[in-house]
């Protein structure tokens, strides 16, 4: 466990401290929040994709469920933000539970079915027939609980908890058993690893992270539409960031977010279509030439990365 402690001291702690003091140095809080959000989401995706090999293409479905869980608790039930956060997280986990049967599918089938599930949740939430509950396609406004500073700090706290969980996965027996399942489920089962339980726990952990992040997102921006909360681009970003840095590591997704999301924010907003082109080319090149991410430049040479 000494390695785990080192990861916490040299990776988790600096990231959390920087995230916490960043608003004092830089005024664009929404941008900083987006970074924190993607740092968290990429790690949440890492828990399921990196460690078990299941790619949840519709990861944003859980995120959106968290956001709408928060919004509905505030709008309809009139709950205070922290209770609503718990409901949002619970909504994410519930959706995750509902989707656990999908883990029976392998490979691309899981990814596609997961995407279809996310689309289905989006279509239910945005359906005008449910306007009384979800406000349908017209979006929600949570101005009564709007608290950008506090919600940013909560976002950093969620990031900290997520990073700790990932540091544990990276260095624990459980995380190792998950990777064994990813490499070869049959051999892992024969070695005594509880395959189904391991996958389910990883997926639910991932869903909890996404649900909680979605809830904090809803609180922070407080006015949003179904297509914002269920934007498939969120799934894609989280996946590409994770893959770019290197899945199944602690710093891989961090690197991915800092580099790629940084690039996105410098050029992506002014010329979106050219950015989309560059982004697509980057993804293709990445898969072909560096399928294990940036960190594989080090791990290939036998250097261990956190």
């Amino acid at each position: 466990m000494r390695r785990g402690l080192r990861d916490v001291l040299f990776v988790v702690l600096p990231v959390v401290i920087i995230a916490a003091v960043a608003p004092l140095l830089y005024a664009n809080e929404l941008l900083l929040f987006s970074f924190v959000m993607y740092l968290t989401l990429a790690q949440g995706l890492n828990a399921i994709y990196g460690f078990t090999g299941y790619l949840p293409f519709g990861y944003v479905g859980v995120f959106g469920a968290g956001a709408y869980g928060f919004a509905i608790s505030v709008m309809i039930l009139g709950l205070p933000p922290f209770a609503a956060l718990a409901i949002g997280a619970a909504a994410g986990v519930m959706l995750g539970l509902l989707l656990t049967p999908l883990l029976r599918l392998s490979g691309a089938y899981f990814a596609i079915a997961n995407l279809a599930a996310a689309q289905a949740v989006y279509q239910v939430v945005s359906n005008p027939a449910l306007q009384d509950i979800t406000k349908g396609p017209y979006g929600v406004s949570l101005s009564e609980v709007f608290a950008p500073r506090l919600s940013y700090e909560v976002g950093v706290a969620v990031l900290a908890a997520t990073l700790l969980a990932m540091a544990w996965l990276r260095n624990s027996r459980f995380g190792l058993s998950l990777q064994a399942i990813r490499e070869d489920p049959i051999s892992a089962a024969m070695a005594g690893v509880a395959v189904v339980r391991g996958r389910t726990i990883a997926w639910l952990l991932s869903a909890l992270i996404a649900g909680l992040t979605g809830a904090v997102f809803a609180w922070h921006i407080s006015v949003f539409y179904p297509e914002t909360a269920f934007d498939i681009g969120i799934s894609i970003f989280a996946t590409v960031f994770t893959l770019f840095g290197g899945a199944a590591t602690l710093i891989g997704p961090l690197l991915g977010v800092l580099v790629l999301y940084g690039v996105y924010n410098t050029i992506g907003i002014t010329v979106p279509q050219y950015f989309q082109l560059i982004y697509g080319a980057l993804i293709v090149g990445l898969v072909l030439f560096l399928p294990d991410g940036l960190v594989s430049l080090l791990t290939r040479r036998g250097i261990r990365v956190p």
Partner: protein
Amino acid sequence: MLLHAALSGLVFGFYFTLVGLGLNLVFGVMRIVNLAHGDFLMLGAYSAFWLFGLYHLHPLLSAACVLVVFTLVGLPLYYLVVPRLLAARDSEMLSLILFFGLQQMIEAVTSIAFGTTERSIPGRVLGSGPVRLLGQALPTSWVFSAGVSLAAVALVYVYLYQTRLGMLTRAVMVSREEAVATGIDLHRVCAIAFGLGLGLAGIAGVFAPFMLGSVTPAIGPEINIAAFAVIVVGTLGNPLGTVLGGIVYGVSLMLMQTYLSSWANLLPNLLLIAVLLVRPTGLLGRRVRRA
């Protein structure tokens, strides 16, 4: 009303068979997911607009051109991308991401080149007035597109079951390792199947303006889900399964639109999940398809 919904569903189903056919061929043979399938369909539609706008080319001729050109484009694209992908550790999963990247590139280039306005071709190009079938009136363009789809299915069927190359293709579908061990030139077989897959997507695109109304550069991902629902409901690698999947998809879509229209767009997603969970081999499947 029920008869009309069922009949138009059938016609739509044949069209969606064509939409899924190319994806099915690529997935069945190479075990990779061409997530850019819907975008090749979109490119087919734009080629049709272009050929129609400049030369008033009949869509049937455009379809023939598109089939040839897209298949020829598919061959170098295959050699550029797929062999490297198949050699990777987890090619099925990585293919999703890689073709997503390609999809983004195609969408971006098309938006830059043509703008994001909706395009359509007037339906009367394919003949005016409705066609009467069993006392129900259907647009001629729908029936025409369905006829082209059936012809394409028949061609794929003949290719797979009556030609030598088709036999080799089926051998690769059953087991890639054993096919290679018996001396089959894997990459030649796969490259042709990949090219044909793109060609079929292109043909489906030529008729998309008539069946789907209008087309924008961003239509790809939506098409992919529908195509996936169709081929999963049917069975992988089996063109007849895709027909069945298309019919199930088309008829249930039309029934939903007739009786429960506000929820109709949920259908492809729910159908996909339900079939995957209840019968992961598809309706015609015998073997369990686990990786």
